[in-house]
Structure formats: C-alpha cells, structure tokens
C-alpha cells in the first residue's frame, strides 16, 4: 500500500496523531521556556551556579529516552504512563538549549550598554526587562529553535509510553515490519521539524535585525 493510499484511508487517525504530536511539543516547549529562561537569567546573576546547572542539564540530555521513561514511570507526580510522562521527558531534553542560550544571550549583551543602564539608575529588573532580555531574544530564540526541532523528533518516542503522537505509526511499523507505516509517521515528523526550523529561523532573523 502506498503512503498516499494509507493517508487517504487513515486521514482522521493521522491528523489526530499529528495533533497529539503538536500538543506534546507545544506544551513541553512552553514548560521548558517557563523553567529555562528564568534559570538562564539566574545563572547570569549567580555565576557559581553556572557549572552545576548547565552540567546537570547536559547530563539529562544524554539519558536515552527509554531509560528516562524507565526512571519516570515510578515517580509520583510526573510519572506513570501517558502524555504527562512523555511531556516531562521532552521538557528534560528541551531545557539545556534554552537555559544555555538564555544565559549566553543575556551575558553577551554589550557590557557598555549594561553599564550605561546601571549608571543611569535603572533597577536590575528594568535593565533585564527593557534592555538585556530584548537584546538577548534572538539568541534565546535560537535555543528555542533547537529545542523545538529536537523536540519534534524526540516526541516520536512518546509513543513508547502510551502518549500517542506520530511515533505510534513508527512503533507499529517497526513491530510489524511495515515500511509504509514507518514512513507514515516519520515523514510528517520530518516535515514538521523542517517547518519549525524554517519558521523560527525566519522569526529569529527578523528579530535580530535591530
């Protein structure tokens, strides 16, 4: 059966899985942003935290996904099986690029600009909100872009823990040695990753013009 035939016959299901996939990536990226950006900012204020925090995020990222699921299943709040666990794992993988780029972006703001701001009597919060963050946005966005592209790919393994997404087709295809099925999951995931990359890349370029 060709891929086109497959989609013609299973269109509703495929769209449903695509939707689940987008939700998994969307929520996990949002949560990773909510944790990663403040943490990245905190690192610029507390240089001593930098190595332990980035080191930990780095180690997290090297944990194989199935092993991570294995650790997560018994956990009380994040654990179990289903979307919540998959999102927890995806957040873990998305954190490093977001924390690192937030830190790099904020610390990389021209020292003279920061000194001028401070010297003029801006508070730390004003400086962060009006100067450092806006100037760091392109760099932070580059981190988000990495996180999203990696996330779209990684979210296919959410199907390993009953969280659905396009990985369902891939796992089914692998289990039944059905290449069409594998493609039916892998192809839209790849297109999604490329689209996210291009879209966020364009946004990044537009924002870094100034």
């Amino acid at each position, binding site marked *: 059966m060709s891929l086109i035939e497959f989609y013609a016959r299973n269109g509703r299901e495929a769209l449903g899985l695509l939707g689940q996939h987008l939700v998994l990536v969307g929520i996990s990226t949002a949560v990773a942003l909510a944790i990663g950006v403040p943490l990245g900012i905190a690192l610029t204020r507390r240089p001593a935290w930098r190595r332990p925090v980035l080191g930990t995020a780095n180690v997290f990222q090297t944990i194989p996904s199935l092993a991570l699921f294995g650790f997560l299943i018994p956990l009380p709040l994040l654990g179990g099986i289903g979307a919540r666990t998959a999102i927890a794992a995806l957040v873990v993988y998305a954190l490093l690029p977001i924390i690192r780029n937030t830190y790099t972006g904020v610390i990389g703001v*021209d020292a*003279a*600009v*920061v*000194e*001028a*701001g*401070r*010297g*003029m*009597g*801006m*508070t730390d919060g*004003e400086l962060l909100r*009006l*100067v450092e963050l*806006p*100037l760091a946005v392109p760099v932070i966005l580059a981190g988000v872009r990495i996180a999203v592209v990696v996330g779209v790919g990684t979210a296919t393994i959410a199907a390993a823990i009953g969280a659905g997404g396009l990985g369902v087709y891939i796992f089914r295809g692998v289990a039944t040695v059905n290449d069409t099925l594998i493609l039916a999951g892998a192809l839209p995931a790849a297109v999604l990753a490329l689209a996210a990359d291009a879209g966020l890349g364009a946004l990044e370029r537009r924002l870094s013009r*100034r």
Partner: protein
Amino acid sequence: MSETVLEVRGLGFARRGSDGSSQSVVADLTFALGRAETLALLGRSGSGKTTTLKLINRLLEPTAGSVHVAGQEVTTARGVQLRRRIGYVIQEVGLFPHFTVEQNVALIPRLERWPPARIAARVRTLLGMVGLEPDTFAGRYPDQLSGGQRQRVGVARALAADPPLLLLDEPFGALDPVTRVELQREFQSLAQHLDKAMVFVTHDVREALAIGTRVGLMQDGRLVFLGSPGEFRSCPHPECRAFLEAL
C-alpha cells in the same frame, strides 16, 4: 562658589584579594564642587579616575570616607534613586541598540513616569541642545549614527532628567581628532550655560585644561594636585610636569 552640589571627603576604595589582603585603588580623596563648575579629573590609565566616578554614583561601594550629592550622603540613599539624579556618560556611550534616539533619551523620564507630552518636549529640547536636529535624528537607531552623533545622544540622555550633577568618563576618548575638538568646543559652551556640577575624566591634558574650570590630577589613586588650570600650569609636582610636557 555658590551652593555645593558634590562633596567628597576622605573617599577611599580597597579591593579585597582572594588571600584576604586588601589593595588600595583609591585613597583619601577630598574635594567639593558647586554649580557651573567642571572638575577635569586627569591621570594616567589605572590612576583611579574611573573608580572615583563609580564611587560617586555608587556603582562601587566606598570602603572609606563619604560622598554627599546635593546635601545627601550617598550611602544612605538607594543606589537607583541616587543614580537617577546623576547624569552618567561613558566612552563607549552604551546607547541601547534596540531603542531609537528618542527612546534612548526618554528612558529615565519614562521610568520616572513623566507625562508623555513633557517627555516629547524634553527630548526635542535636549537634541537641539546637543546639536542634533530632532526631526532628522529622533527616529534613528544608534547604528545609523556616526561616533560623534552617538556621543551627543549619550550626553542628551544623561541630561534628560535634569540632574544637578553630571559624571563623564572620557566621553570623547574614542572619537577621531577633528570630531573630538568639535565636541569639546560645543561641550564647553554647553557647560557654561547648563549650570551643573560636572566631573570630567580624561587622560588628555589639553582636554582637561580646555574643559575644566578646575583640574584634579590623580596618581596611584591619590589626588596629587587640585586647582585652577592656571595653577596647574605652574605646578611643581613631577606628575604635573610629566603631563605638561605632553602639551
């Protein structure tokens, strides 16, 4: 001297080394400055000029002595409140690259919640004052300006909230010689009718003599000479002689 704007008494700053020893960067500075006075703080690199400015607006905490700005002891004021009453201009200018010229100049009035109409009027006045045509320049971004124009904006920004005291850290140091002389001249006339106390840091003795109503010479963190430009020319101190020979 009319009313005293800045009074520095026995000011010192020591940096504590990792081994617990402390190294003096600035020591025993004493001077006072009134309205319409400009102190040109002269010295070689590393003599403590920039540190002195940062002790005055508390970007650094003094380890000895006291600083009064407009009668208030600076260590009792909140740093942020204090710095909003002190204009600050640095060599690298430090304009916010994502703000237009207008937004840069308007920043402190905006943070102080001035009414928008008052801010707009103030920006136009200031830009005119530093020789930038408001209609042409207000909407530009810093990367669309020349080095001299940027520093003019820097001065306008420092004057925005009409502070009684202005600190300038080698503001013309990075400019080409022609622009530099041009700006020095304009600054002189600006300073004369601005009626502000200014501390102007430079390592250029020509600039110090041209701009300062008084000259202070620093060596190794200490003030080795303080007096009028005329007095400076006849100062016998070896460091004074060294600088005068560079004329």
